[in-house]
């Protein structure tokens, strides 16, 4: 479990005008959850993500990963072993140019013996269906494959949490779908907690819980349906809703009476069928 208690964060500046990037954040993320974090540019999402695995430590307040405070230097490896992090641009994350060598990087850092390392790299690449690329150069891969290799690079140390900071932002729709399917599989089959930061509302709607960040504060924290009910509030924060939610909202404005916050195409289709059968 990750717990954030009264977390505030600001960058040190030479001027007296200190702007709080994170402002009194209180959150709990339990094991096995699939959480998405949404927010406008500059709202503090990435800064929050970097706090979850100790890359940044709060100016005040505490971040506890299974009880271990990220402020304590001796907890650093424990925190990073439990909370893996994948960034937006996979090209900036690769340390080595050969897939299996790059995936093994984290294992080398924690001193895993060579034989075990080889077995774990193979197993991880198989889990993500990219074993055939093990000897390939990272430069030869497509955007989606590169992002899967980046995920493999953190998955290989068996973290309990994986935080993805806009990791699908640079991908084409099909690759995004592939990455999302893999994340759902990791969450449902291996029980890995996924914390996904995204600007794509359709992706956000796939999670069990959405956290909305606005100007460094947690503005909303609920399930997708309840979040996307509040279309006006989201708009005021520079956000939108999934297309299907906006479509239902347009129909309601035209006089229909569809439930609020529909995020699922099947549910929308069922509601529309009901209206057509019983106008």
């Amino acid at each position: 479990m990750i717990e954030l208690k009264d977390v505030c964060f600001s960058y040190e500046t030479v001027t007296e005008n200190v702007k709080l990037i994170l402002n009194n954040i209180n959150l709990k993320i339990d094991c096995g959850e699939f959480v998405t974090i949404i927010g406008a540019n500059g709202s503090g999402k990435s800064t929050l993500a970097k706090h979850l695995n100790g890359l940044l430590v709060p100016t005040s307040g505490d971040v506890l990963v299974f009880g271990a405070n990220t402020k304590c230097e001796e907890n650093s490896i424990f925190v990073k072993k439990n909370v893996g992090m994948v960034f937006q641009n996979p090209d900036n994350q690769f340390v080595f140019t050969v897939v299996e060598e790059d995936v093994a990087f984290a294992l080398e850092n924690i001193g895993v013996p060579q034989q075990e390392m080889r077995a774990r790299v193979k197993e991880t690449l198989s889990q993500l269906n990219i074993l055939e690329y093990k000897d390939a150069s990272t430069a030869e891969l497509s955007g989606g494959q590169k992002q899967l290799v980046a995920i493999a690079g953190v998955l290989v140390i068996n973290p309990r949490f994986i935080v993805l900071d806009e990791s699908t932002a640079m991908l084409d729709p099909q690759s995004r779908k592939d990455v999302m399917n893999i994340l759902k599989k990791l969450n449902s089959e291996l029980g890995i907690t996924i914390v996904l930061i995204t600007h794509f509302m359709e992706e956000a709607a796939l999670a069990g819980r959405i956290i909305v960040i606005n100007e460094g504060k947690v503005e909303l924290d609920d399930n997708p349906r309840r979040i996307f009910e509040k279309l006006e509030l989201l708009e005021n924060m520079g956000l939108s809703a999934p297309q299907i939610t906006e479509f239902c909202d347009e129909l309601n404005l035209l006089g229909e009476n569809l439930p609020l916050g529909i995020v699922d195409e099947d549910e929308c289709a069922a509601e529309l069928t009901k209206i057509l059968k019983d106008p």
Partner: protein
Amino acid sequence: MGAVFVYTILICMLKGISAFALTFAILLGVYKIAKIPLKVLWKNLKVIIPIVTITAIINVFLIPGDVIFEIWFLKITKEGLVSVLLMFCRVSCLVSGTALLTFTTSPASLVDALEYFMRPVKMFGGSPNEIAMTLSIALRFIPTLFTEIGKIIATQKSRGAPFNSPKFKERLKAYIPVIVPLFYIAFKRAEDLAYAMESRCYVGGDKRTRFRVLSFGAFDFVALMLMLTYAIVAFWVDRWRICR
């Protein structure tokens, strides 16, 4: 890497055309075995031609000896010509031989070898692993930065930067708006990579284990023996000045 070290010393010691001819013949054979097209070799050699030519022109007139051609105060001597020929052979052999190492060995293996040879650094408190990691990342980012330069140039061209101006000063000035964003991108990438490495438990030091451990195998032994045989034969041929 060890073989290249021996080879470099040997090439600097050779003084006879025959030994260089032998070296060229062996190099051609090795290029053939390594399936490296001679076009690639020629591309490498082309780079050094201007430097070698300028040095050759200076040398051919400055080295005293038996004059074989004279115009006004410029004298071409037999010794000068021989010296230029030897210099050309030496530089060509060095470039072709050392290029073989980079053509046939991955940057990761090169860095591993470098780390192995840098073990004495530990005695002075240094960390060969950290030096090797720095080198490895530097090598890994060279092509990335070249791609970025290409992108920045294309962007600046689309905004009218005079990269093709006939005036040298204007062309030079056009590169200033390339350098500034390039530095920004390089620092941004460095920051991203540092975060990525840290989040994957990297703390440096020599306690890391290795995914790929270099070991001295049968092929390495055969290659070393062949290298030593070549060195002895080339040295012998040179010493007795065969066909000089």
